[in-house]
């Protein structure tokens, strides 16, 4: 059979070549994960302990004490009784419809992955803010991370670590980390140059300047990034249930395969309720700080 001319059909690569390339890459990665998988797993061991410990803590504590802790945290950060009331209603709804345990699993997952995203993302954001070259390298990486379909993350993670909590955590962190990096970078770059100059003029070292001026002044912006990160982590938790992450994602997944509409809806609503609480709390916190600083700037 004659091949079509190149201007009619796109002159694509030979099928065999493509297959060979895919095989080679997949094989290389599989070899890599076979030989280093255990090592990498060992590296993540402490993380797993922490995750399990935190999940157990939430699950074993009496429901009212968890509710109390959530309310206290919500009030301390947002100083708003409305948000606290909303949180109480949401958790009562969750508990009443039998979703308490899944919710605790999801919350522990979100908490740990957000902490991890902050612990990794803030330093990266700081490095980006310090050098335009780093920024030029990291920004396109973040663009790719944010636009790549979330399912694609799961493949290499599963190949490397199998199915379970740690690979799930890793996938969630990779998916959710870009906002905190971006906004840390932005926040630090936006710090008033005159204030920085003043801190230099008083002989502050680079570290004193970072900790005493740049991070505090960038903090409201960083918080906005953390807020987005939490939201994205919550969205990813559902997808990550495909690779064995416990929590509200599991029943949703089951509902899809078995066409249980009500089960799916209830768990979906629980996720929405969590999202709203997390969002309002972290936003109110950021806004409160921002207000204080803004006032401070044009008195």
């Amino acid at each position, binding site marked *: 059979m004659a091949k079509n001319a190149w201007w009619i059909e796109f002159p694509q690569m030979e099928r065999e070549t493509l297959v060979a390339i895919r095989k080679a890459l997949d094989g290389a990665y599989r070899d890599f994960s076979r030989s280093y998988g255990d090592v990498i797993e060992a590296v993540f061991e402490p993380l797993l302990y922490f995750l399990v410990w935190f999940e157990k803590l939430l699950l074993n504590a009496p429901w009212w004490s968890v509710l109390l802790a959530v309310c206290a945290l919500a009030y301390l950060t947002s100083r708003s009784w409305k948000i606290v009331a909303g949180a109480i209603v949401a958790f009562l709804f969750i508990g009443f419809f039998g979703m308490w345990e899944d919710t605790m699993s999801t919350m522990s997952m979100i908490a740990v992955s957000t902490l991890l995203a902050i612990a990794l993302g803030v330093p990266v954001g700081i490095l980006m803010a310090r050098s335009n070259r780093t920024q030029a390298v990291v920004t396109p990486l973040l663009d790719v991370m944010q636009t790549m379909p979330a399912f694609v993350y799961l493949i290499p993670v599963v190949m490397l670590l199998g199915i379970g909590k740690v690979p799930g955590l890793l996938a969630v962190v990779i998916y959710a980390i870009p906002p905190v990096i971006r906004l840390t970078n932005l926040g630090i770059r936006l710090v*008033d140059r005159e*204030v920085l100059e*003043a801190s230099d003029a*008083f*002989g502050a070292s680079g570290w004193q300047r970072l900790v005493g001026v740049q991070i505090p*002044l960038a903090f409201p912006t960083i918080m906005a990034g953390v807020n987005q990160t939490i939201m994205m982590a919550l969205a990813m938790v559902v997808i990550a249930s495909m690779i064995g992450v416990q929590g509200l994602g599991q029943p949703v997944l089951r509902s899809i395969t078995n066409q249980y509409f009500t089960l799916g809806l209830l768990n979906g609503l629980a996720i929405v309720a969590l999202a709203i609480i997390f969002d309002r709390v972290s936003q109110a916190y950021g806004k409160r700080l921002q207000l*204080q600083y803004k006032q401070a700037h044009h*008195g």
Partner: protein
Amino acid sequence: MAEPMIRIQGLYKIFGAAGEAVLPMVRDGMGKQELLDTHGCVLGLRDINMSVPPRCIQVVMGLSGSGKSTLIRHINRLIAPTAGEIIVDGTDVAGMDGATLREFRRHRASMVFQRFALMPHRSVRDNVAYGLTVQGLQSADVEKRASRWIERVGLQDFADRYPGELSGGMQQRVGLGRALATDPDILLMDEAFSALDPLIRYDMQNMLLDLQTELKKTIVFITHDLDEALRIGDNVAILRDGGMVQQGKPQDIVLTPADDYVADFVKDVNRGKLVRVESIMKPGTTCASAPAIPIGTRLERAALALSEAAAKLGKVTDRDGTALGIVSQLDLLDAMVRRRRPSP
């Protein structure tokens, strides 16, 4: 003569990557505009030589963009020179390594900024204490010293407020307190009062002068306001397009401006209130009955003394009453009102 506290020698600053490369051309006299057009570099400062005696207030004046901020930032090396020396108390600031420079900034020279540059996330107390915190002092010590300075600038009732809650004048008092709290020898003030209303500015000038009689710091004070310069300055230097046009005592600059630029600056000054009689007296003697005008008298008062005594001539005397020279009504009038042209 006492060794100057700050001695600036042959200072050049050219902004831009090619700064060092174009330095020879600038030394040969290439102008600011030409440099910008041909090499894309901005001439910040050109061949500045200046000495500031200890415990004096040195004012630096000039129009906007003349290089005042650039000059003052060389003294604590917020800007590094392209060429030249900045000798502070015997050490070249340009040659200090990072750690030495930080020590210098922490203990020897503080800065007050035009737009205050306070830390919005710190209370007044913590702002004033900033320099001490940076020095790494113990918190009890910091607390005590900061409180003292908060009181000294009259903010004891506002110590726990945030800068954003204060008026401009109060904010700059925080700035002044912050600068003084480290007990530096040198105070660098870049248009520190320019952003304030005239009345508040006048108050702040008074506060600074009060503090100075007590503290005797070496102060470099930038302003574009001539009245402020004459009121505060022991010495005045005038910058134009990055070059030094004239330096001297305030009254010398008012009486003998070096060029039209300076003449333009000083044309509206009330010389009668500024200039002292000895700077226009002539040698000579007069009759014993002529009114005695003690040295240091301002022209206006001298004119009043002559007119009250209905005399044409007065004798200028030193503290012991010895006659030093004479001054006529006409000289006084001339010195006070005639438009000054630069001497060719």
